[in-house]
């Protein structure tokens, strides 16, 4: 889907037969209303955050944010949770995408359907469903207690574990899409060549297939990591309120502490980190692969 963006943007009208002269110059204007809406409802709000972070009450917001133990540990927690989420998404996503890319249409169709359903289902509903599984009186703990494996409920949520489980479930489809797109491009003849030259299946996988599939792993990881950084909903429901992720911290500052300047400064820092990572990641992954993502929550 993302690849189509760039391809259809680059193959613009110039190539086809020309429309009447007057018509050709009017197309650009059709973007104007959307551009104006974007200006008022996207660019102005972002600008307002920047202004507030510098003037409410002063640029010292940033100094306080950077030196604050709470903010720093929140960024650390966010990074740890995001890295774990990426790791689990790779672990689960790779075999899934692998089978999906290489199977006959029926199997690929079922797997494709199973990854699209969670992609479109409400993140709120999915996260809420996880509380039914993970809470102390939840499905997993009831089972463990009934079987007698444990004597008291295991703490599965309201901590980093719950957050990582929930975020992995929410973000796995992004990883699968990205990996699938790159695996689908691999020429299977290369595998046959490798086998014909005497390499075993494991060696063929490690030396031929795996390297060719890495671009999808990179762009998938980048999407998942960057999206995790700004998560609010899943950690708010499944996570530890005492160790908030950056997204939660921003909401806390603005909603409860009414500390607008500080919240804005942390927001801008989060945005900068996100953009920086995207810029760095772009060296390994393609922009069009990243753009296929649907934002958090």
């Amino acid at each position: 889907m993302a690849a189509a963006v760039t391809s259809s943007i680059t193959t613009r009208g110039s190539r086809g037969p020309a429309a009447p002269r007057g018509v050709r110059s009017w197309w650009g204007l059709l973007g104007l209303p959307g551009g104006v809406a974007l200006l008022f409802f996207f660019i102005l709000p972002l600008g307002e955050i920047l202004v507030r972070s510098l003037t409410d009450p002063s640029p010292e917001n940033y100094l306080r944010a950077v030196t604050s133990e709470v903010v720093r540990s929140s960024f650390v927690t966010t990074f740890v949770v995001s890295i774990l989420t990426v790791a689990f998404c790779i672990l689960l996503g790779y075999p899934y995408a692998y089978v999906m890319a290489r199977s006959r249409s029926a199997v690929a169709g079922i797997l494709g359907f199973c990854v699209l359903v969670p992609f479109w289902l409400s993140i709120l509903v999915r996260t809420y469903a996880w509380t039914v599984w993970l809470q102390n009186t939840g499905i997993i703990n009831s089972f463990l207690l009934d079987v007698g494996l444990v004597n008291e409920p295991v703490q599965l949520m309201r901590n980093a574990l719950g957050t990582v489980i929930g975020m992995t479930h929410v973000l796995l489809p992004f990883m699968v899409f990205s990996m699938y797109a790159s695996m689908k491009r691999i020429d299977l003849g290369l595998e046959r060549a490798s086998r014909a030259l005497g390499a075993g299946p494991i060696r063929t996988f490690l030396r031929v297939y795996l390297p060719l599939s890495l671009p999808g792993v990179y762009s998938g990881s980048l999407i998942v990591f960057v999206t995790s950084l700004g998560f609010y909903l899943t950690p708010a429901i499944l996570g530890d309120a005492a160790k908030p992720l950056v997204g939660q911290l921003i909401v806390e500052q603005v909603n409860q502490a009414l500390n607008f300047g500080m919240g804005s400064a942390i927001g801008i820092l989060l945005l900068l980190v996100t953009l920086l990572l995207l810029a760095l990641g772009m060296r390994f992954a393609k922009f069009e692969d990243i753009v296929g993502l649907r934002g958090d929550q």
Partner: protein
Amino acid sequence: MRTPRWITTAAFVIAGFMVLPTLVVIPLSFTTRTVLSWPPSGFDLRWYEEILTDRAWQSALVTSLQTGVLTAVCATVLGTGIALSLSRGRYIGRRFFTIAVLAPMIVPTVILAIGAFFVFSSWGFRGSVVALAAAHTVIALPLVIVSVLNSLSQFDRTLELAGYSLGAHPVRVFFTVTLPNLLPGVLAGAMFAFIISWDEVVISLFLSSPRVRTLPVLIFSQISSGVEPSVAAAASLLMAVTLILLIGTRIPAMLGRKRKRLHAHS
């Protein structure tokens, strides 16, 4: 090279992990108990009755529907315009414009939410369906644009040329040739926009007022304070609408295919 069976099995187990955990809310929504606990017992429609008759749930449902429809309309009209502008216009800053319209996918929603909260508050614009739809439109735009661009890339422009050469006015060509051919992409974009608005939480949380709040916002506040099974019913409802719309998005695509087949035959 054949895929080893154990990897295929693993993939199906992972498929189960993706789909099954969410489904537990459905049996829970029919429980006869008044406290949310597993396993559910009995079969009772009272929680659905409650959310459909209770004032708070009712008004949230109406707000969600209004916001979703308004978002779908705005995002579809604006997004189709932007897609046409990007693929056919030639002007300075088109590349920059491309990045700007896709940026809402990359900017964390929390940041957009507080930005909209600040700006909309100062305009006295917060806590209305229009405000919610305006912010939802921004995050829905990229998907509509991608969807329409997809249709545009498959569109044969000689059809338009035929229209011009037959003497039709460009506006008429647009509405009788261009738009009908793009319709599958446009309709799919509209459905995506509705679903995004229907499910959105963080922005709605900041732009809601006690009187105007969406279904997900109400569910979220209920989850935060002790849980009744009515939440499971509302969650199931949310899920059902999304699934129905998703199946709906397949229909324009199928119609498009059918039309193409008809063209091929004629």
